[in-house]
């Protein structure tokens, strides 16, 4: 067949396969995005309807001097970075350790599924009421038994941030664990034998042999977990609602509260736009990272 026709054939086939999905996406995302952008350029405050009108870039300018906005950015960065690093580190460490006890692996892999499949809103609610409640919660009972006293895990601003990070990490570390465990298990043992003969220490073996071999898996886990962390909403919402005050108010939650609690739809829309820009920038970087590794 001549190259030209083959190419055309391929192209029309590709289009036929793509068009349905793309049509759905364009339909469901374009109009809302336009609406969002439109709102972000206006002053829409349901509490003060007489002030509504076109605002140009005012909402965005206001963001620059809004301490609560910068706070939410900082919290988003801390939350995302901490949870992802913890998940990978803990997941990897667990996987390495558990590899050495094949009998325990099966049961652990089954248990690992449980946190992942629970609905985030249920997880947040559960942790708030049964685990982190002062006095009667599980964590408090443990700390009091250990002599560390009772604390307001969700009511104290610093502890609240640690708590929501703990909740997210708890739910998603099993994912990293499962993936890395399975990856490690497929590594060829003979390479390790050779290294052992070479008198290389365990840490050296890990650093120079294991890590490079599992790098693609780690990268994939990091990407997936980062995306989840950036869009985390339901669990924090159920656990703290963004509080106390603004202690756990990541950008996601700040936009929600601005729109729905303070009824400032224009500003809320602009916050959502900024969040979108940030997530797109990060996902672009991740996209490139993955391509480079491959």
């Amino acid at each position: 067949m001549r190259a030209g026709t083959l190419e055309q054939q391929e192209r029309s086939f590709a289009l036929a396969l793509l068009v349905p999905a793309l049509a759905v996406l364009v339909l469901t995302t374009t109009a809302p995005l336009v609406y969002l952008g439109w709102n972000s350029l206006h002053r829409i405050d349901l509490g003060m309807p007489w002030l509504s009108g076109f605002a140009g870039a005012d909402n965005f300018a206001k963001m620059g001097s809004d301490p609560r906005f910068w706070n939410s950015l900082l919290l988003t960065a801390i939350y995302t970075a901490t949870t992802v690093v913890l998940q990978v580190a803990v997941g990897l460490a667990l996987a390495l350790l558990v590899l050495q006890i094949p009998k325990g692996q099966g049961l652990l892999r089954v248990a690992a599924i449980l946190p992942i499949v629970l609905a985030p809103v249920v997880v947040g609610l559960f942790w708030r009421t049964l685990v982190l409640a002062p006095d009667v919660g599980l964590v408090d009972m443990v700390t009091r038994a250990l002599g560390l006293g009772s604390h307001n895990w969700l009511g104290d601003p610093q502890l609240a941030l640690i708590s929501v990070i703990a909740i997210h990490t708890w739910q998603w570390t099993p994912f990293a664990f499962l993936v890395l465990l399975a990856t490690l298990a497929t590594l060829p043992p003979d390479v390790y034998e050779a290294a052992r003969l070479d008198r290389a220490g365990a840490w050296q073996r890990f650093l120079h042999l294991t890590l490079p071999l599992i790098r693609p898996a780690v990268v994939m886990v990091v990407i997936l977990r980062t995306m989840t962390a950036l869009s985390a909403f339901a669990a924090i919402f159920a656990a703290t609602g963004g509080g106390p005050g603004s202690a756990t108010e990541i950008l996601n939650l700040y936009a929600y509260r601005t729109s729905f609690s303070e009824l400032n739809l224009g500003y809320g829309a602009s916050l959502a736009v900024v969040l979108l820009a940030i997530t797109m920038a990060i996902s672009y970087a991740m996209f490139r990272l993955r391509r480079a590794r491959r």
Partner: protein
Amino acid sequence: MTTTGALPRPGRAIALYALAGAVLAVWAFPVVWGLLTSFKTERDVLAYPPVWIFTPTLANYRDVLFGPSSIVPNLFSSLVVASLATALTLVFGIPAAYAMARLRFPAKKTTGFYVLATQMLPPVGLIIPYYLALQKVGGLDTYAGLVVIDLTFSLPFAIWLLVSYFEDVPVEMEEAALLDRAGRVRALWHVILPQVKGGIAVTTIFVFLNAWNEFMFAVVLGGNRVRPVTVAMFNFISVEQTQWARLAAGAMLAMAPVILLGLFAQRHIVKGLTVGAVKGGGRR
């Protein structure tokens, strides 16, 4: 399952088993606790220190399944929404992913990034536009409405996930199928798709899971007819009191399908995810 070294010494083994046990407890305790609570009477639930030995009762499950606030219609709602969303995602997503992985066409990179970007949309910003849009077309409180909205998030995710599986299919196999005068569609259906069975399974599970566990849009865009379990559970948290035991029973029933799905498909999930990762890294 191979190990990366010799078996550990006995002392070390015990320590490791202890650690594994601790981790198991940490991961499993909410489900175990919820299960225990769901069989307690309300009075036992509030007892402090917590009672571990108590007379179990089925009253909570009876109330939750057959009582006035029965969650059976809600389970049905969730099932319909999640199943439809999953089915449609696969129908649209599999062909699209194949095209993106294997075929050449103009603006391929841009399309790829567009699909990835739509996954990045913050749900927070979309609640109001979706509410208004659905209302205009009469889609509020309908299965079609909620399913379409769920598609917005599950479709890009599915495509992105499936692309890596398609990319792992050996090029030679595909070329052979084409040379066989099989025709593109047949090649796709008979030769290539079976190769990505694992990937499709993984995608199905995750998409179903996400749709089943969805809360925010279910509350805003649903109503009386379309009322998934995630929303219905709040019926037990009224302003007057929290009915802990019934809430636990409701939560157990609500999560049972996905827990079972996860347990059953656990091997698949892990295999599928790792195959995509390792092979993809090693080859190119």
